[in-house]
């Protein structure tokens, strides 16, 4: 089930909300309601795979219990069994077909299992639980709480990836309040607007341009202007798509008393690639740092080769995590090389001009998105040639002009809101609570948000283009 859908907004959410607050007298009953409705939420998209989800909950609860109970070698065996089985399940559903195809085994083409929605997200959360118990960051919980942690519907499909130790206490002892609810609903509506109005508009541009550059097996030359527009539109699409989902997830969690960490922090204003990855999909970066990079030794190693190896492993895993395709692996390694270069040569820091730093970062990130979006590496290569005007293609494109003309309002809003301008304005208003502007804003804000909500519903009711990138991860 998508948050940005009629069924969620006018059926699922009101029912869950009503049930949840009817049982305000009992935290346990509220948690039961959240667990059951989360499983219904998952089953709505994957009726069969809800069994996989329940299996994952039961298995990881058992492993967590054994890891917590046992000591010494047995404890390690339980930990590694948990890790191996989780990774194996992820591998079978997500990567086996790709691996068989890559090593050219006969019949491999036919081996493709439908991907359970959000498997990468909930598997990583499950791993986090087992490892946290092993490290003693938290104690083993009963399957009910583990189930709620893994399947809690706001973060189930596309994160943010919550580490168990950060919500263990909230599951039992969180406090709901009207202020939390208010902040949550505002955040949800903002996310909905970002997704429905901005991301979907950029998707219409990017998808058409990328599809046009690869019709069937043919790689078609696309004019330079159009290629750049497609690349920029995709960069905006993926940011607004994913950050909108995170906004909606964080907002919904607040409605039910949970406080999740931020997942994005204006990544496109980063001044280096290292900075970009501190701002983009923060929960995934944190997860890899916490559970892969640090256990391998991180940066605090005597031998620099080990640091390079550790970075390589993390970026390879990051690439693989995003999907079973060479493009994702290459995309991960691309960031490994760039980050390594940044670390050794310290070039973004050495640049004096901030404009140069931003320009460099945006250029590298945009190029990365081309690899990420392409169907295969060959298309990515041809697309780069299109962007550089080296694919026997022209520069000017009527189609690009038309696409900009049709979407200029959204492109402008997309570019503006990718910077912290709204946050900064809020801060200014916050510092002047009694100013006239603040008073006017207090009256106008609810109306604007209501209008935003209604506009989003009108888009959804019209059955407008509504793809969702991270749904497949």
């Amino acid at each position, binding site marked *: 089930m998508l948050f940005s859908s009629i069924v969620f907004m006018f059926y699922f959410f*009101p029912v869950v909300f009503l049930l949840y607050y009817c049982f305000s007298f009992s935290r346990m009953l509220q948690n039961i309601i959240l667990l059951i409705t989360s499983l219904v939420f998952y089953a709505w998209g994957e009726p069969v795979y809800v069994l996989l989800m329940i299996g994952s909950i039961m298995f990881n609860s058992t492993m967590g219990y054994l890891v917590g109970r046992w000591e010494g070698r047995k404890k390690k065996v339980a930990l590694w069994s948990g890790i191996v089985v989780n990774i194996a399940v992820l591998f079978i559903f997500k990567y086996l077909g790709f691996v068989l195809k890559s090593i050219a085994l006969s019949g491999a083409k036919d081996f493709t299992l439908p991907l359970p929605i959000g498997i990468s997200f909930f598997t990583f959360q499950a791993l986090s639980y087992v490892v946290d118990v092993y490290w003693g960051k938290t104690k083993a919980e009963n399957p009910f709480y583990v189930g709620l942690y893994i399947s809690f519907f706001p973060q189930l499909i596309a994160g943010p990836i919550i580490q168990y130790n950060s919500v263990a206490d909230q599951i039992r002892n969180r406090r709901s309040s009207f202020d939390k609810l208010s902040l949550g609903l505002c955040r949800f509506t903002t996310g909905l607007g970002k997704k429905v109005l901005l991301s979907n508009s950029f998707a*219409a541009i990017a998808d058409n341009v990328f599809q046009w550059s690869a019709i069937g097996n043919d790689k078609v030359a696309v004019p330079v202007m159009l290629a750049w527009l497609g690349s920029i539109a995709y960069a905006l699409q993926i940011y607004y798509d994913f950050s909108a989902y995170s906004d909606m997830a964080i907002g919904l969690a607040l409605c039910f008393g949970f406080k999740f960490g931020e997942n994005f922090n204006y990544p496109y204003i980063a001044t280096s690639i290292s900075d970009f990855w501190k701002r983009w999909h923060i929960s995934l970066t944190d997860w890899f740092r916490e559970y892969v990079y640090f256990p391998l030794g991180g940066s605090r190693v005597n031998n620099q080769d080990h640091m390079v190896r550790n970075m390589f492993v993390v970026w390879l895993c990051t690439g693989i995590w995003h999907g079973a395709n060479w493009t994702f692996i290459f995309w991960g390694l691309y960031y490994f090389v760039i980050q390594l270069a940044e670390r050794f040569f310290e070039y973004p820091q050495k640049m004096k001009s901030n404009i140069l730093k931003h320009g460099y970062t945006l250029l590298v990130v945009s190029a990365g998105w081309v690899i990420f979006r392409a169907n295969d590496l060959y298309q990515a290569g041809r697309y780069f040639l299109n962007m550089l005007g080296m694919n026997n293609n022209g520069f000017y494109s009527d189609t690009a002009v038309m696409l900009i003309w049709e979407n200029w309002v959204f492109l402008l809003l997309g570019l503006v809101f990718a910077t912290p301008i709204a946050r900064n304005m809020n801060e200014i208003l916050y510092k002047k609570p009694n100013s006239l502007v603040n008073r006017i804003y207090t009256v106008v804000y609810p109306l604007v948000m209501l209008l935003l909500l209604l506009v989003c519903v009108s888009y959804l*009711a019209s059955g407008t*283009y509504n793809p969702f990138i991270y749904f497949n991860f």
Partner: protein
Amino acid sequence: MTRYLLRKRIFAVVFLVTIFCFSILNFVHSYEPLKEKLIEIVNAKEEFSVKRVVELETTITDNLYGRMNYIEAYGYIQKLLDKREFNNFNSIKDEYGYLQYASFYREEDTRLFEYSMRIKRLQDYVKTSDTKVLFVVPSGKYDKNETKLRIGMPINDPNWIVDEMMFYLNRLGVETLDLRQSIPNEELSYEEAFFKTDHHWTIPAAFYATCEVVDKINDSFGENLDPQGYYTDIKNYDIVTYRSGMLGSMGRKTGANFCGIEDFTALWPRFEGDYTRESMTQGGQSNKKQGSFIEVLMESSVLTDKTDIYSDSQYSLYLNGLRIYEKIVNEENPEGSKIFMIRDSYFSPVISFLMPMCGQIDAIWSLEDTRELDIESYVKENEFDYIIIEVYPYNINSSAFNFFKED
């Protein structure tokens, strides 16, 4: 802090009141269709799958309370933004306000020769029973001489496909009628021939096309349809224009705010006639009617005051839209020409106008699954005088030629 939270609190109250009130209204409104869908899903023997979820979700969205108001709001926003494309290029509006199909590219259809061969095989098959075959292609809405698009708009132009197919058919010796050459013309302008909000041609254009078909059959096959020229004379029809009464199939998706409402012109015959019509709907329901032209071949209920422009199609005035199968007999001229038509919705009014000049017309909807009807044996058993295959340019694909397949 207080004011910061105050505005959030106000919105939270507004949000919750809006969502809950609307959800209750919506649930009451869509209760019946939802119940029906759920019963259908429960009674279905297959397991609850993603397909079923999608069906349920579609039912929920389609029955949203006040859905058309939301679609109109969406259309209005698009208009405010001065957009010409609608919903990721589902359709585009040209500079004269005509909705057109859009496409960034069209994958080359290399099987046009095979489709042509299917028609040729059909022609050879019925040759022994002296049945003549005619392939008719109606005018498409996109006309490069008449359509003016905003720079860079990706129009879906099927004309080159039609050209290639006509080339093959002519070489294979199949009689063809390319109505693109005659509609629009000096007597019938583009504005009169096409709706702004619908993909079909207008009723006057369909009448003009009927005359062209009659001329073609008479000239090419030595037939003498309408010897007095009575039924092909527009003076024998009352031309009635219904002002602001039409929102076509494309317009119903975009809403009237985006494309406007237009007039609908109908031709009411001044003669009566006596016809019998048996038809079958997509759902398998059979229907039989007998009576005059207006009673049997027209559905005047689509033009009453109660007509809902968002759900009723005025174009369905003739034959009430498409049926997967129908058999119409002219009781006043039972010995007249017997025609079998493999057609789409473009020919619904044409069949009506042609009927007084023929003895019997059997018609099937080419794009629908006609598994109940084996075309090959049906044409052999019934010994028709003519077989007319009509395909709208945008409908040229394998399913439109569901006979004599050899690939």
